[in-house]
């Protein structure tokens, strides 16, 4: 625990550095060093907890209502903490360089400061073990990420994105306040341990609390239909902030849900089915909407909605396993959900960084204006490609490992007795999402990096510096390692799954005994794939060695005067697939003799949230007369409120 606090101290030192040190290059270097060192220190206890040491906890008297502050690291906290620290440190290095390359000193300094604060409070969010501390950290996370989103606040769309974000996140926080207030009523100290002890007295079996938690944490996690703040917030913020928002901040919603499930004990079946259904909905709609985007960062943002869906499918499976008394399913489901959370944090941060490097060099996020960047930024392209292969979940990278676990869980559910077997229908849904994800990233990687430049902007691009590339390569290396060595990685996640699902460790060991031969075979399969590729590549080189190899123009069926405008665009690439799904995609098409482009709209934000908000605003105006500026009326309201409260205290039992 001391190492953890020392690490947090280093992170706070990074905050001070960003404020105090003069000289841009120097400051960024010291800042990045402090963040990386702090993250490394703080990750040591997390590794020890994951390695089988007992959970750690410290209790601090707070002197505030709501009891002592408890900070602790249990396996669930440990894995989220590691994700926070790894992605946080990588993005600190990247972000310092990126902000300095693009903005003036004051913006860069402010962004670094707020960023380091965000990393510290994220570490607190996942280690807080008492309600007040958790909510404080939660709120500081919301505010610091709001400030980071608003970095480019002179742009109107950034202010709009920030506004939608702050409204959404505070609505979510309110729900969490209600949930925790009701739950911790009657407990001595508001610590998580005493919440777990109040299980038997949960209101109406905990159903309303579960729905409150689902909505409150769901706004942060951003699953359909609560995702509406997410795409614009991710697109508006600086690239490293998008990376942390998408990789980590939205995952705190998942963390919160898992924590609630852990504390509330075995859930009734309908909780599990709700989560599974939301997951399936989110997975398909998220990727479908991603496919419709032409802003590369909005595309990645919508893709987070899809991955949150996959994580929820895993969680739903785990909950089903607990509800129907199927321990292996519980362990597999929760374990896969947490593993996919970590995987997504890694590859989504990587993708945002690569996309951000392209944005830094070309000044545009519009895919229709890009193209041909692979030749100009080869390492960035390689990083983006690795991220793409990981996110579409194909072997041999890490995305495959977690999706493979989810599928296994779905199939195991399929031949179980009773209603549980209906969960098998999640498999084709996940497969559809997988196929769409492939299309989506073929579009992203193909249109941005390959082909010919679609405008003048890509012509200026050249490879970014090591401060941009090293963090990407580090995350890419972890993605490859998890993909090739699933046997090492899956085991601790099964034990975490068992902890969340309330299963004894012996069950986790049994589940591991069942999964481990397959995990080793996956390693053989992935390595075999790489080997076969190398062998065929060598054979191809050998055959071509003595033949004529020449370069020429692209074959265009005999038509001579091709221009780069004749290439398929992002709009036209996605059009046939989107047309299959019709109005679900919310896309408007503009067709002309020489122009085809499509305009994506967010169905939930534009058709549901905005009209609803307008209606709330209109009816709120009717209340306006009560606030007419005369002080004695206000005093009257205060007296009336106090009277009402006192009456309640007297009348209530």
């Amino acid at each position, binding site marked *: 625990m001391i190492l953890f606090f020392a690490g947090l101290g280093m992170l706070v030192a990074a905050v001070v550095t960003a404020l105090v040190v003069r000289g841009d290059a120097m400051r960024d270097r010291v800042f990045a060093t402090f963040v990386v060192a702090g993250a490394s220190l703080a990750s040591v206890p997390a590794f020890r907890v994951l390695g089988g040491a007992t959970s750690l906890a410290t209790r601090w008297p707070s002197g505030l209502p709501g009891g002592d502050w408890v900070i602790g690291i249990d396996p669930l906290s440990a894995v989220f903490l590691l994700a926070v620290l790894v992605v946080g440190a990588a993005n600190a290095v990247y972000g310092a360089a990126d902000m300095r390359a693009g903005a003036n000193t004051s913006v860069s300094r402010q962004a670094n400061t707020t960023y380091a604060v965000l990393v510290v409070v994220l570490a607190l969010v996942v280690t807080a073990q008492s309600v007040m501390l958790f909510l404080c950290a939660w709120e500081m996370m919301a505010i610091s990420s709001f400030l980071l989103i608003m970095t480019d606040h002179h742009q109107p769309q950034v202010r709009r994105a920030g506004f939608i974000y702050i409204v959404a996140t505070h609505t979510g926080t309110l729900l969490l306040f209600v949930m925790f207030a009701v739950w911790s009523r009657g407990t001595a100290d508001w610590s998580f341990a005493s919440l777990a002890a109040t299980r038997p007295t949960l209101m109406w079996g905990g159903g309303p609390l579960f729905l409150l938690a689902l909505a409150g944490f769901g706004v942060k996690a951003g699953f359909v239909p609560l995702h509406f703040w997410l795409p614009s917030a991710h697109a508006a913020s600086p690239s490293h902030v998008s990376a942390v928002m998408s990789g980590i901040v939205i995952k705190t919603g998942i963390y919160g849900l898992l924590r609630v499930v852990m504390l509330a004990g075995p859930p009734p079946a309908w909780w599990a089915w709700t989560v599974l259904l939301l997951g399936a909905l989110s997975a398909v709609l998220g990727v479908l909407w991603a496919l419709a985007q032409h802003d590369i960062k909005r595309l990645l943002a919508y893709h987070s909605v899809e991955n949150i869906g996959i994580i929820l499918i895993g969680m739903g499976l785990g909950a089903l396993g607990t509800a129907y008394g199927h321990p292996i399913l519980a362990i597999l489901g929760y374990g896969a959900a947490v593993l996919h959370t970590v995987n997504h944090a890694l590859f989504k941060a990587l993708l945002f960084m690569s996309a951000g490097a392209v944005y830094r060099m070309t000044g545009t996020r519009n895919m229709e204006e890009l193209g041909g960047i692979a030749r100009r930024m080869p390492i960035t392209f390689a990083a983006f490609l690795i991220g793409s292969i990981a996110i579409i979940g194909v072997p041999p990278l890490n995305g495959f490992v977690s999706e493979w676990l989810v599928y296994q869980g779905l199939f195991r559910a399929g031949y179980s007795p009773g209603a549980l077997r209906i969960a098998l229908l999640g498999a084709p849904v996940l497969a559809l999402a997988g196929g769409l994800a492939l299309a989506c990233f073929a579009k992203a990687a193909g249109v941005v990096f390959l*082909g010919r430049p679609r405008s003048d902007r890509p012509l200026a691009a050249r490879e970014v510096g090591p401060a941009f590339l090293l963090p990407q390569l580090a995350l890419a290396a972890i993605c490859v390692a998890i993909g090739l060595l699933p046997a090492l990685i899956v085991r601790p996640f099964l034990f975490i799954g068992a902890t969340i699902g309330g299963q004894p460790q012996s069950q986790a060991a049994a589940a591991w005994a069942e999964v481990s031969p397959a995990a080793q075979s996956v390693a053989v399969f992935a390595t075999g794939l790489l080997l076969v590729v190398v062998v065929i590549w060598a054979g191809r080189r050998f055959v071509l060695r003595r033949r004529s*190899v020449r370069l020429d123009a*692209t074959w265009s069926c005999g038509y001579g005067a091709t221009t780069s405008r004749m290439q398929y665009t992002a709009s036209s690439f996605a059009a046939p697939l989107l047309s299959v799904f019709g109005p679900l995609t919310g896309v408007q098409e503009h067709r002309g003799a020489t122009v085809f482009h499509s305009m994506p709209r967010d169905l939930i934000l534009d058709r549901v949230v905005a009209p609803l908000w307008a209606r709330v605003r209109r009816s709120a105006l009717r209340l306006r007369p009560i606030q007419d500026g005369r002080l004695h009326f206000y005093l009257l309201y205060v007296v009336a409120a106090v009277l009402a409260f006192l009456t309640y205290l007297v009348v209530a039992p």
Partner: protein
Amino acid sequence: MNITTSAAFAFILVLLLAPAVAGVATRTKSALTGRQGAPALQLYFDLWKLVRRGAVFSETTTWIFRLAPVLVVATTLLAATVVPLDGRVSLIRFSGDWVAFAYVLGLGRFFLVLAALDTGSSFEGMGASREVTFASLVEVGLFLSFGTLGVVTHELSLSGMLGVPFARHWAANAPALVMISACLFALLLAECARVPVDDPATHLELTMVHEVMVLDHSGPDLALILYGSALKLAVLGAMVVSVLVPRANLSAAGSVAVLGGGLLAVGVGIGIVEATMARLRLPKVPLYLAGASSLALFSLILVLWNPA
């Protein structure tokens, strides 16, 4: 891992026989439509010719374009290792290997699509766009089929789903398994760019999906792509054969022989379809794939509500 000789033999047989399956389809088609037609072994001649040629690359392209053909063959080979080609057991088997099967083919497709976009050609972009459209719908039917087989057999690997004990499941689940076979065959036609989804015989670029994506490949690279496609056809064909013909009571040699015969029969089946049907209009293809998927969905519902 316990590799049996019959699995190894079946694997080698599929590798060798793959180009002939498409040839048999062409022969059948030409016989039924009263034409001369290319010899059944034409693809072997083509491959041999292409391997000895040089290559022309578009100036627009990057290393992606050169890597894609290698990945197409490598991923198909790996996919073949988890299918019980001899109707008993595969070279590599593990629980959830059907995910690896479908997704590793996805990796190959991903690179093929990227290679098409790499050329910057409008035609190849068109083919790539159509390929991902149809492929994402194929996945649904494929996983519904695997789901049905999983529920029927209570197994988690393809070897378990399609392997030896499969014979007894026919008695209990014949209707579901017939529908699954039909679905898999329909998906095979779509996945391997055959009529009614795509026409391998036409070279009018605007009508094509798979062929138009590989317009720019030449020499050994084109050979790799052609061989990869043929191999994918053979592997999916072997899967259909494994559902239709349980080989529980056959000797190892017998089951490998059934595989050979079955693959040729699949070729004949494709030829019959191609001789009697026209290619669908492109907007109708999603309906065709949805139809195939709903066959699988019905069979899944059948077995979920009536577990063996």
